């Protein structure tokens, strides 16, 4: 196991080797590893020949990424890169797993493509024990996408701009809708800024705390003519709303399904009744539909909704509500009721000849984080979660965790010496977007020039005032993981 992370985490300590790369150099590292695999003759030639396209071009594309050059950009020694390349290529099976450290960059999508290239080079895909594994941060991120909560997709990842598909849905739903592709989250905030988006209905999200460059985000929310928030908590966003719909809690007060990282659809069930006036989300939405003049919705049960979905989304077709109850979870695609579900994807790439599209190599370029390090902002700030907390803390601050580490800014011991700040000292932390006060904690394992903090305690530390507003145009995801900051000692409170 190799751990590749700017920070020496507990997973890194578990691993056989840790590569502490510079923040935002994932593509550089992947390209360097690819070149080393190619030059060492470790590519899976048969797989490349039959199952991929664009190899020759890719080979040429990564040619400049020698071990030395890669090392210079990533900060990781050449031997470590070679070690990783050889280890990965020679392993009988290998997986690449990642979380938001890959995707929350302005090159997020390219980062993923760079990793996919490695799997294609070595044939570590489409077989048991191999593959590319994005680890989801919430129980139903996958399910949200599966159900069409994307600007360009209908349930089952079916294209909204495909007339035939849209026709199928229109018929089933007895309604017409446009094939126009919608906005992603970042585009929505842009649209708010341009006054093109004037009313927003936020369901179970707390953007007034969680958005990058959050000061800007709050301003945008304030500009709206109408903000409706449907949530289980009175979050900062809910407090800004014109109307709040108190909702039942998904996992403990509602019936339905959630789909995990491994595409496993599982039942969620109500164990306790929702408090006070809180209503089931299906009910809220149906009631809204009625008020908006749609009279044919009725009050569908979660089971009825699921059974309808099965008729429209081929990858869910075999998962009857009954099967979900009995089998305790099925992985899509599951095209018919006799199908056991699919533990892994892309197995077709091993069929000869490959049916359908071959997997393309992607020539992706290393582009450093948008928020540049300069003399004025010399320290790289990256944020992340810790074990006992969750997102903006609204769910996890309700229990008294003995291991809660708080909201401090972690810096390396070298930087603490350089800055003349001590453990526990409160300092002023500034980025190009704002300044906040933070308590310092020294992490012996942190690389020099890197700072880390969590985003679980926005009430105490409004960290997203600092994070970068740069975003990936392909995914709409903001570059949370790479901000440039300055840390200043506070001589007296008067200076604050």
């Amino acid at each position, binding site marked *: 196991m190799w751990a590749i992370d700017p920070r020496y985490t507990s*997973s890194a*300590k578990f691993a056989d*080797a*840790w590569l502490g790369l510079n923040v935002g150099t994932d593509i550089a590292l992947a390209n360097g590893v690819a070149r080393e695999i190619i030059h060492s003759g470790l590519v899976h030639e048969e797989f490349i020949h039959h199952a991929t396209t664009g190899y020759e071009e890719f080979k040429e594309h990564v040619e400049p990424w020698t071990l030395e050059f890669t090392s210079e950009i990533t*900060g990781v020694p050449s*031997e470590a890169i070679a070690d990783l390349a050889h280890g990965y290529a020679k392993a009988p099976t290998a997986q690449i797993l990642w979380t938001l450290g890959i995707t929350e960059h302005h090159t997020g999508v390219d980062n993923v493509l760079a990793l996919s290239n490695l799997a294609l080079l070595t044939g570590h895909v489409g077989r048991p024990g191999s593959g590319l594994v994005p680890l989801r941060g919430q129980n139903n991120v996958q399910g949200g996408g599966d159900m069409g909560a994307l600007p360009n997709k209908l349930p089952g990842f079916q294209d909204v701009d495909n007339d035939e598909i849209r026709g199928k849905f229109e018929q089933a739903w007895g309604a017409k809708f446009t094939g126009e592709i919608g906005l992603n989250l970042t585009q929505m905030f842009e649209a708010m800024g341009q006054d093109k988006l004037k009313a927003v209905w936020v369901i179970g999200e707390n953007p007034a705390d969680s958005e990058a460059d959050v000061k800007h985000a709050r301003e945008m929310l304030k500009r709206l003519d109408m903000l409706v928030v449907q949530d289980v908590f009175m979050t900062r966003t809910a407090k800004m709303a014109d109307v709040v719909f108190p909702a039942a809690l998904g996992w403990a007060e509602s019936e339905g399904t959630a789909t995990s990282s491994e595409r496993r659809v599982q039942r969620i069930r109500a164990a306790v009744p929702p408090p006070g006036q809180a209503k089931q989300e299906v009910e809220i939405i149906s009631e809204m539909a009625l008020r908006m003049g749609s009279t044919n919705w009725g009050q569908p049960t979660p089971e009825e909704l699921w059974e309808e979905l099965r008729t429209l989304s081929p990858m869910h077709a075999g998962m009857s509500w009954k099967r979900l109850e009995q089998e305790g979870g099925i992985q899509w695609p599951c095209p018919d009721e006799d199908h056991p579900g699919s533990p892994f994807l892309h197995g077709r790439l091993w069929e000869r000849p490959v049916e359908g599209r071959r997997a393309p190599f992607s020539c992706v370029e290393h582009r450093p984080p948008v928020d540049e390090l300069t003399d004025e902002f010399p320290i790289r700030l990256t944020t992340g979660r810790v074990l006992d907390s969750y997102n903006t803390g609204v769910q996890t601050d309700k229990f008294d965790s003995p291991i809660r580490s708080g909201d401090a800014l972690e810096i390396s011991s070298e930087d603490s010496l350089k800055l003349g700040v001590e453990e526990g000292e409160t300092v002023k932390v500034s980025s190009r977007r704002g300044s906040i006060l933070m308590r310092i904690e020294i992490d012996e394992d942190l690389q020099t020039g890197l700072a880390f903090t969590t985003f679980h305690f926005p009430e105490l530390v409004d960290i997203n005032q600092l994070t970068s507003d740069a975003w990936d145009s392909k995914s709409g995801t903001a570059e949370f993981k790479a901000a440039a900051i300055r840390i200043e000692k506070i001589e007296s409170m008067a200076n604050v």
Partner: protein
Amino acid sequence: MSDLKFGVDKPTAEEREAIDDFISGVGPASIKVNERFVVGGRSRAKDRRRLLLPALHELQSTSGWISPGGLNYICKVLGVPPAEAYGVATFYHLFSHQAPAANEQIHVCDDVACRLQGAEELIKDLKESGYEAKSSPCLGQCERGPAVLIQRIKGKDLAVVAESPKPLTVKNIDKALKENASSEQVTIPQRGTDSLSLLARVGVVNPKSIKEYQEKNGYEALGIALNVGPDKVIEEVTASKLSGRGGAAFPTGVKWRAVADEQGRPRHIVCNADESEPGTFKDRTLMEGDPFAVIEAMTIAGFAIGAEQGWIYIRGEYPVAEEHLKNAIEEAKREGLLGSDISGSGFNFDISLYKGAGAYICGEETALFNSIEGFRGEPRNKPPFPTTHGLFGEPTAINNVETLVNVLPILRNGGSNYAMKGTENSPGTRLFCLSGRVENPGIYEHEFGITLGEVIEAAGGVKDSKEIKAILLGGAAGSFVTAEHLHLPLTLEATREAGVSLGSGVVMVFDESDDLPDTVRRIAEFFRDESCGQCVPCRVGTVRQEEVLARFTQGTSFASDEELLEDLSTVMKDASICGLGHTASGAITSAINLGLLERTT
């Protein structure tokens, strides 16, 4: 290891230095190549786990205890979770868990043999003289009790015994500390007689001289082995019908064959030198008096089974034997008789010496493996057996010292020749540990088949011509017999038939004046103290057994105690994991059956 979290306590400079020195050969569990590249993780930490026990010894001898700062440091360097390391450290009696009150800790054996020789008085005298003294289970010096082990900070451990016939006093301790010397003597009343085979060199040659060893047939057997090849060696050992001398009497040739057949996997030979059975001191005598024989025999065993690595696990209470073995290993290496390409044969073989830390249970073979591997010395369930899943889960032949040394005459004279000694089913000679009320206690070598009476006669008979009240045969895990058994031929088959066991060759004689109920209670206490605590029958059973015996001796028995004792015996024999539980009630039951425990109510 993953979420390892280390305490805040820091090691002293001395502790850090001692651990760093010790680890320098292999390096720490995680290596920071530079600020951006660290190699380490679970696999490297696993590889280093076997250094835990010796590292704890380093810490104990540096600071006189397992200090929190020192243990933390060991854990960081080796990648061992602190809670596990603490669990390992607290398993062993010889590791202290409080800051030392004195520079030396004196362990006085008050076990079955030594308590006949005034052990309790000695402890009292030592305490009155200002020493930190405490009682200890058998120290394996039963012929010269009471025996003493001195553990010191930054100094080698000392074993002190009386120079017969004068009993040990505080003055002997003062003197040993002043001279920084253990008592070095082995008691071989038959010394130098022609009939001796295993003991031929003991007390005759200088145990530190490989030259003297070689002049007395030393390394002839290895030469023969290298010449005839591994299969022939195993054939000879099989033909000799040699069986294990540790108590279970398993045929050695069969064991070796099984391990040799595990081709393609790393194999090990382990010498069980954790002799801790109360009343037993034969292996110590061999290691102290003829250490090269142990090394040569292990080398032959390694050659026969295809092992390149041998391990000696010696109990921590044997500092003299340890020193002699260390010297023998070094000398053998210097002479090219150990290490790579032994005698130009192409055979590579090395030996690691591991020191126990005060735990009888580690004489159980699988507990011994766990102890070497850096885990608590808890026995494993069998099957699987060591021949397929032994040390580090790899095929292992484990033999005790006496068994191994037998291999030398077998190879020199031929297996069938060896089998002509003794009886048909118990061929060869064996060592007997004579202690208690005999005129000349010590180690004796006799052919199998000699009677119990003849063994005692050979030791000069009962001391002061008193009447025999009882004989403890085979050790605390054996059983009591009486004068009625003096005609019993000491063979595997005859003892089995009589429902007793030769065990580790213990013959401990008690006369009419001895307090047998006290001895029996001490045996119960021994098992209570030495149970590893893993399985319920033994962990709680040995406690309840000792409580019943305490009630017997105090005259406060319940009416149902006799039945309870029987039930305890049954569950320990039937349902315990290992031999400790299986035998923990044997001597006690036999004492009751022979009427040696007069109930005082």
